[in-house]
């Protein structure tokens, strides 16, 4: 459990530092290395990767859209189409980032087990 929390924190922290300067998929190598170096079960590695980026992306997106009164998010959620539901758009955003990060962390863990 301790390693899970450490793992989430490491991925979340490093990604938030690196993402402003690098393409979004920098989350994959970050999660991979966290998975590789932090010892835990494969499932836990995936979970840590998933939740770290899910939390990071959803909370940052929430901060941005909140200051905008959901003006743009509402339009995009209509366009994509999600019936204009901003919460749905946030959820999808989190899941997309979470999946990539989770899979990368899992790959890192599996690489460490070789």
């Amino acid at each position, binding site marked *: 459990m301790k390693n899970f929390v450490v793992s989430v924190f490491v991925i979340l922290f490093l990604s938030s530092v690196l993402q402003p300067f690098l393409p*979004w998929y920098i989350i994959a190598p970050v999660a991979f290395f966290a998975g590789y170096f932090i010892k835990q079960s494969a499932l836990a590695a995936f979970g840590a990767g998933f939740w770290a980026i899910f939390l990071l992306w959803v909370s940052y997106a929430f901060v941005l859209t909140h200051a905008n009164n959901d003006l743009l998010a509402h339009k995009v959620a209509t366009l994509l189409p999600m019936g204009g539901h901003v919460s749905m758009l946030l959820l999808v955003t989190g899941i997309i980032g979470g*999946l990539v990060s989770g899979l990368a962390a899992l790959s890192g863990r599996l690489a460490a087990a070789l």
Partner: protein
Amino acid sequence: MNYFKFILSAFVTVVLIVLLNSQLGVAPPFAKFLNPYQGFWQNAENTKTWKDDEAHVPGLKDEVKVYFDERLVPHVFAKNDQDLYFMQGYITAKYRLWQMEIQTHNAAGRVSEIVGEKAIDLDRMQRRIGLGYGAETAQEYIAKDPASKQLIDAYCDGVNAYIKTLKPKDYPVEYKLLNYKPEAWTPLKVALLLKNMANMLSVFEYDIENTNFITKYGDQNFRELYPDFIDAEDPIIPVGTPWNVTPQDSADHSKMQAGNAGVIRNELFANALTKPDEITGSNNWAVSGSKTKSGKPILCNDPHLRLSLPSIWYEMQLVSPNMNVYGATLPGSPAVIIGFNDSISWGVTNGGRDVRDWYKIKFKDASRDEYEYNGQWVKAEKKVERYKVRGKPDVLDTVVYTRFGIVVFDQNFGTAGSKKNLAMRWTAHLPSNEFKTFYQLNCGKNYDDYINALKNYTCPAQNFVFASRSGDIAIKQQGRFPLRDRASEQGKFISNGTSDKDEWKGFIPSADNPTVKNPERGFVSSANQHPTDSTYPYYYPGLGVYENYRNRRINKLLTDGKDIDADFMKKMQTDNYNLLASEALPVLLSLLNRSNLNEQEKKMVEELSKWDYYNNAGEVSPVYFEIWWNELRKLLWDEMMDKNVPMKQPNFYVTVEFLKHDSTSVFYDNLSTPNKKETREDIVLMAFKRIEDTLRKKEFTEVNEPYDNDDNYKKDDLKAHDWGSYKDTKIGHLAMLDPFSSMHVYSGGNIGIINATNTTNGPSWRMIVDEGAMKAYVVYPGGESGNPGSAYYDNMVNSWAKGQYYEANFIKQGDELGTKKLFTSSFKP
């Protein structure tokens, strides 16, 4: 086993990343688009805090300050003209970059690069009518004028300085959605924008349609349905104004004596450019001090264009030691296009003159290497156009250039099977420098400056209205107009492109273009009507393309008006009186056989009979009239709706006169009922019977049903709602994305009405300049920001729809804005 698990997991991860980072069909690349660090969330503008900022911008000579007011209108204060235009470019790009670029991509025939093969025909058309060619010609010409070049370069440098500050996260949201990135701004793009405008405003030629009509229906019908002038003509230059014009003095006059080899009146053509059904033009007028409360002139202008978001105009104030000018700018192009400064004001409406002529080209053989000219074969120039198409291989298209213009329609383009070669000669292909006109107007001080500024303006031809603080008013139709042969009505039909006799003989000298200064009646005005009556010494095709309603309404209101002030003008610009209906409806009602009407229809007749002819949003009668009138024209002019033989419907005025005076014409018979011969009364009734049906079929959205409690009609039995809901005005996003559009805008008006708001077009900028109070009132259907994630994207739409205005903050220095200041941006070299 462990290896397998790892490889599988790593493989899935990589595939997922690639998928989420690439564009699949029309969907954006999901992770790229949705991640909060670079994706669209970054475009969600913080609407709560605005603070002053500072930046160092390489390329500036001196400090520039930009004050943004409460509507986010920038007031740019520079210490020299170069810095001024540099910063105009920089700021415009900051708020309108995507729009600027997509418009030039459109003009350049490059939309397929972004949206793929669905735009390829659009792109080919743009290049075949020569928008790029015209822009290149203009750019080369402008480069010879160092002063213009320097300022246009400064503007482009400013745009590019802004683009350089952008990281992918800062790109406008449309770039993220469509997955591409901005490219550098160039003087060619500035020229392309003006050619794009020229294209929108040059559609009023019907050479091909007229040739088809006269071929099918003969000369007599043509004279009746497409007269050069109408009885109720109320031209821009008041009737009786003397012409200080002598065509005989023009250098090209002798060439005119040679006559014309003859236009084509006995052949059918399958292709023509698509055109709007009836002109949606623009209004402008100026009244002299003799008619105003203040004793000084008031000038008004509202150009009608397709309503779009981001708005076609960007409101700005530009201040340098050389000028202090305010008004509507065209994003991507320097200077103010419609506006005022501390001495003068000006505005434009479309001239509507025919500035495009079509020529049938005779090639020697299918290779199209040579064409006939004065009895000989001369070599044609060929240009291979290459189109990059997103996700597909490049497309190539060979376009042939002749001395009669670019061959637009040929074996490779237009209706399949039509092997006819039609070239188009167009004044937008002439070398010209429209920027200089606007620059000189921006710095202008008086009437002489205004006339001098217009001197070399070429295309699109415009009616430039003018007023000065010193008390002058004037109007001039300016553009380059070809000298054409009157006897053969050159320009009205397709010409034989085989000899020098068919060519344009030269151009009407600018000084001879129709103009009037300080007329006795105390006002000047234009609304896309005939510029002159028939006494104007030069021949130009009349064709009945001119607007005949707004002009008469405007002139009546201005003639009657006394002690005019800005409020009077506000009421006038948003006037909904339907002059067409006032002339057409009594005729329709008199021709309507009422013996077989149902209860619902009787109520409609009753409503219509009581109507005061105002197309206000809350009325129902305009709905009935509109449907009746449109259906009647479909039944009456069905002969002109043959898809394989493009023809033009006679205009509204001619249609009303025709219904009134011609009781037995062959055109009353409907072609879709071969066994029955309809009469005038038959089709009037048939059209009337379609009103109910049309209303039942129309889907009203909940948003535009504010008058649900109408006593006469319940939602369930008849969806007869008021005019505002029926018209259902839409201000559409340029990429046709509904969530980024202003939908269901509730307003009155229509084409042919001063408030010319119909479903898709309308007043794109309303401006009233009171030279006495030195105040101006403006509004436009959009907002200053091009970002759909900004509160300033469409914040003026409601005021616009309601006919409300904002007082322009026309200031001499930044601190005058006081509490109206949102923030200040300071730029240093």
